[in-house]
């Protein structure tokens, strides 16, 4: 015996053949029709919130109180990693275009659709612009944009956020560099007696300076590798937590090979520079002064 149909509320409907076309206020459960139920796909956030699974039967309506259709869930879709959707508390339901049109009574009206051009020579970056211009010449009541223009428009907010994050990163790096330099100076200064002893027994300034710089470089290298590992682990935890909270595959933090390489390189440069500065200060001091006499 098939399971009893369950009510379904959805905030966003999308056609499977076209991009999102229609956004009714709600979809509610109503009386079933005798015809075989159509199939729909719901996103995993809705499935989790409503406790639905593939094979479940639900009623789907365009507005609360309207009769709607009995539909069967044929698939549960995973959301794309789209930052613009993360904070929206919406559910997505996908259904066949004709079903969507009949359910909403909106005919073939669509709000937005995509046109893929073909036949343009590869590397012809201006082709989409020409196609959009050609469409706009004969368009009535709508306007065409090349995909790049749409991408720029939708990503402008994230560029601002990205710049903000970059500014925070630069401030953090500068502060860390000063902190690292001070720590290295202090740690090297703690070794002034050892440096004095080395100079007293005949070790050349260059030898002592080389040893200090080598040690500072090794500490910086090991520290940067440990730091990168710690950053990777923290990133994994942050992603795991927020992907769970927002039910999205979006990666909130990234530790790329480029970032690791930059961090290690920066750390090495800072280690070498701070080692040279700290070492030069010590080897220029008289050995007897270094050993406190």
């Amino acid at each position, binding site marked *: 015996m098939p399971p009893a149909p369950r009510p379904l509320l959805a905030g966003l409907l999308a056609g499977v053949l076209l991009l999102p076309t229609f956004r009714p206020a709600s979809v509610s459960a109503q009386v079933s029709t005798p015809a075989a139920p159509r199939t729909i796909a719901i996103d995993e956030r809705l499935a989790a919130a409503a406790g639905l699974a593939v094979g479940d039967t639900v009623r789907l309506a365009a507005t609360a109180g309207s009769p709607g259709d009995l539909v069967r869930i044929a698939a549960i879709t995973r959301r794309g990693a789209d930052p613009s959707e993360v904070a929206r508390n919406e559910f997505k339901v996908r259904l066949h275009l004709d079903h969507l049109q009949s359910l909403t009574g909106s005919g073939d009206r669509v709000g937005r659709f995509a046109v893929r051009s073909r036949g343009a020579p590869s590397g012809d970056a201006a082709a989409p612009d020409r196609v959009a211009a050609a469409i706009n010449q004969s368009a009535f009541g709508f306007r065409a944009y090349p995909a790049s223009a749409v991408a720029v428009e939708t990503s402008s907010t994230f560029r601002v956020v990205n710049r903000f994050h970059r500014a925070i990163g630069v401030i953090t790096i500068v502060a860390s560099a000063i902190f690292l330099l001070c720590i290295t100076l202090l740690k090297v200064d703690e070794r002034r007696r050892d440096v004095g*002893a*080395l*100079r*007293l*027994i*005949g*070790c*050349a*300034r260059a030898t002592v300076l080389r040893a200090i710089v080598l040690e500072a470089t090794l500490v910086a290298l090991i520290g940067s590798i440990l730091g990168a590992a710690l950053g990777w682990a923290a990133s994994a935890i942050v992603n795991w937590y927020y992907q769970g909270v927002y039910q999205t595959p979006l990666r909130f933090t990234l530790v790329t090979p480029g970032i690791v390489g930059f961090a290690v390189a920066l750390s090495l440069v800072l280690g070498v520079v701070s080692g040279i500065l700290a070492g030069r200060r010590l080897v220029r001091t008289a050995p007897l002064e270094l*050993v406190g006499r």
Partner: protein
Amino acid sequence: MTVTPVLSAQSIRRAYPLAGRSVEAVRGLSLDVMAGEWVAVVGPSGCGKSTLLNLLGAIDRPTAGRIVIAGRDVSALGDAEATRFRLTGVGFVFQRFYLMPTLTAAENVELPMAEARMPRAARSARARELLAYVGLDGRAEHRPFQLSGGEQQRVAIARALANRPALLLADEPTGELDARTGAEMIALLDRLNHDGTTIVTVTHDEELAQAARRVVHMRDGVIVDDVVRRPLEATA
């Protein structure tokens, strides 16, 4: 036959600026030390003993006078030459040992030899030989914090002898040691001297001074007494 001294200091002076005036720690001091001698420099605190030792070891430069060690004038060396001379020309033993805490006893002894570019195998063998000589052949792999004060001072002596210096300079070598360990250290220095090492020690330790062949008394930057207790010929 003329015997050339290993160390010859002639009319050396060392003045320091202090509160706008010049204070002389060593005032026209002359001293000759022959090969095989063990000279103990004694005197009250502030009489210029340590300043003298620093001048003899090219740690400091005299403001006047001349110091020749093993035929080389060390009183006018530049920093790099003085550093090189401290590495190969003299061996230093300090009151507070000044061993590298992160290195083992053997590595501490090898350090001056590594700086002098001695091959690894040769310096390793020499370090073992020296540690055995000072009675630490079983402690080569121990780090300074695992050694007693006396053992650390033995390592310091082995390190000072690493590059076969013409002269061993020791600044209060028993100053940080208890009476029994101090006596062991004196015995070791005595053995070193008997085996041909020329030693100059600065000390307040009466027993150490008594063990030396020659005792030089200093006061106010000059030598006021110079007593040969055991001539070289007597124990040759």
